[in-house]
């Protein structure tokens, strides 16, 4: 086969995952906004009976945005980027096409069942691993199918050397595979007890402190390999591709990648500071978290430097704006996290709203921005139409940026205040504040956060609408744009 001939890439699977990214993104953030409002206005807990309390919905929010929205986005971009940087079309292999479609449909059905199971209250109560064992099994199968796609495409590639994005996709696959398996190990009680009780129920393989260690070895790195590694894969493709600029430094890419891989896994115990895990492990968690700043910032800086001299692109192209701001929020959360991992700071930050604040810097400012920018870049190529509206895109950008800033400033202040109030003693050395005092003081911040949720959600709807119009009715393109995405 002629290696230089223009390839007709097959985007059917990428398109399918694009739809679910939008769908789950909307649902997840709708619930996010609802639970944010519930903390400010508790009456909202009673809209859906026992299925509508904050506590029942919170895991639905986290799981829908992680395993629904983010993971869909990872799959969608992989099925797009993978073909292009490996220079091979899925249409060339019937087998891979079949696996890709199977991957999607199993994923979609699995996601629906998983959400229903959480609403019904089936939960292992381990954060980000709540799904009970039958759902876990389905997830493992889905993940294996994705692995077959990744390594299958790599196997038939024409581009000898792997592009940086592929390094990160491979790492995503391996990291999550290892962590998910270990952390979800559980014994189904139905079988051991000889058919008693609920078949969905299981007990964790590990207990107490050990369970905590495994959970946060997983939990921290689920964040790492779900919210960081694959998103870095995206920015390494979409930013240079959209801007037409070459990556600033191979060396920086290389050191950042291997540094990140090595250091990330040590940092999990920063979720267990001052707990009952051994002191030395906690110290390791703190230390590695701080060192982690550099490999994290390495990628962000590499991206910002890639745009050196391209100020006009930044002002004219909203997609570039999204990606540059995403890098900046990535820097913010990967500096904030390490500082929260310092033991003295964690004594205050842990258990407070400063943590969800940190979380949402990362997810709203970095993960969602990058995924939306990626899908916007892909749309004109996949649907052969220009992006429906640049104006809408600009408006969305400013609306959502405002929302992120409101979210993180309100939770930052709320968290620090609450953390310090819990510790405060009066002049006689007795606790100064009752617990409920530390709750009522948060009301205005909770209200601001709820408002930010509404703004962000409206922004996401603008994105969905723009994408829908792009797919269906904007101007058709006669040939594929090389770099900058055309928009009306």
């Amino acid at each position, binding site marked *: 086969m002629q290696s230089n001939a223009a390839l007709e890439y097959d985007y059917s699977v990428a398109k399918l995952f694009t739809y679910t990214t939008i769908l789950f993104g909307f649902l997840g953030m709708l619930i996010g906004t609802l639970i944010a409002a519930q903390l400010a206005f508790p009456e909202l807990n009673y809209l859906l009976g026992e299925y509508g309390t904050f506590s029942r919905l919170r895991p639905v929010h986290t799981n829908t945005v992680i395993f629904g929205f983010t993971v869909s986005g990872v799959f969608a971009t992989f099925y797009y980027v993978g073909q292009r940087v490996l220079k091979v079309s899925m249409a060339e292999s019937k087998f891979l096409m079949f696996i890709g479609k199977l991957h999607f449909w199993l994923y979609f059905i699995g996601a629906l069942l998983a959400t229903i199971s959480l609403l019904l209250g089936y939960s292992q109560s381990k954060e980000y691993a709540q799904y009970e064992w039958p759902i876990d099994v389905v997830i493992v199968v889905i993940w294996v199918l994705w692995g077959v796609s990744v390594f299958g495409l790599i196997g038939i590639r024409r581009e000898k050397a792997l592009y940086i994005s592929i390094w990160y996709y491979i790492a995503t696959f391996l990291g999550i595979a290892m962590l998910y398996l270990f952390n979800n190990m559980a014994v189904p009680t139905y079988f051991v007890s000889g058919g008693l009780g609920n078949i969905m129920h299981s007990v964790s393989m590990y207990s107490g402190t050990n369970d*905590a260690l495994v959970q946060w070895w997983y939990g921290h790195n689920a964040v790492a390999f779900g919210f960081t590694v694959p998103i870095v894969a995206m920015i390494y493709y979409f930013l240079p591709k959209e801007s037409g600029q070459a990556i600033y430094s191979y060396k920086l890419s290389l050191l950042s990648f291997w540094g990140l891989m090595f250091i990330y896994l040590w940092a999990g115990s920063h979720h267990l500071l001052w707990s009952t895990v051994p002191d030395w492990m906690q110290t390791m968690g703190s230390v590695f978290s701080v060192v982690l700043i550099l490999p994290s910032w390495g990628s962000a800086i590499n991206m910002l430097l890639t745009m050196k001299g391209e100020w006009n692109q930044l002002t004219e192209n909203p997609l570039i704006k999204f990606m540059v701001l995403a890098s900046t929020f990535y820097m913010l959360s990967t500096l904030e996290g390490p500082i929260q991992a310092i033991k003295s700071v964690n004594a205050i930050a842990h258990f407070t709203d400063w943590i969800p604040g940190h979380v949402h810097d990362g997810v709203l400012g970095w993960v969602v921005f990058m995924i939306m920018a990626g899908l916007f870049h892909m749309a004109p190529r996949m649907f052969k139409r220009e992006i429906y509206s640049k104006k809408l895109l600009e408006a969305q950008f400013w609306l959502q940026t405002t929302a992120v800033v409101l979210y993180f400033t309100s939770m930052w202040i709320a968290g620090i205040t609450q953390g310090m109030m819990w510790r405060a003693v009066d002049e006689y050395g007795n606790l100064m504040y009752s617990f409920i005092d530390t709750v009522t003081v948060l009301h205005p911040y909770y209200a601001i956060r709820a408002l930010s949720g509404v703004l962000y959600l409206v922004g996401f709807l603008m994105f969905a609408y723009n994408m829908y119009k792009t797919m269906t009715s904007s101007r058709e393109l006669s040939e594929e744009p090389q770099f900058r995405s055309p928009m009306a």
Partner: protein
Amino acid sequence: MFHWLEKNPFFFAVGVFLVIAFAGLIEILPNFAEASRPVVGLKPYTVLELAGKEVYKKDACIACHSQLIRPFKAETDRYGQYSLSGEYAYDRPFLWGSKRTGPDLHRIGNYRTTDWHENHMWDPKSVVPESIMPAYKHQFTNIADLETAYAEAVTVKKVFNTPYDTPNGVKLGTWDEAKAAALDEAKKITADMKNQNVKDAVAAGNIPEIVALIAYLNRLK
């Protein structure tokens, strides 16, 4: 070397795997040898308490409540003695939580009581007027799943050697015995409760979720 790896995906993947597996081996595995020993006197959960723990998981109280008292004066003043590793030996899963929208509950059994929980779970604002905790009225009508709790106890006994049926320990016995024991335990709790429907249900042999939950909360000491 790295450039060579980039051209050889198999070895690249192996390399990545080794690098990421390393930390787990060093940091986590060694602890398994020590950290699961129970403190002296710790008893496994009774079937009713396990059913209550299931309610705690189902309604995801962990979304707002921690069960981990850190060794700071401000925390031991508020919640009591700091937590010890051995106290969690029978906790599968651990329920430390990561967010305190509400207070820590690791020793709640020391300073709250059945009747208080009854009022509070029915309507938190009735005892703490500014509370933002949801009311859990459905726990007063939903019936706790004792059979699954019993299955869990049997499982941890068989698979993890959790010491049930030991002298002076928690007796498990057969399913019928366990059910009877749980009912006795439930009756002691409802004696301190006011809700007539709950009392009637227990008298008729069905244990509402709230009773199991309170058994669990009272046990947290």
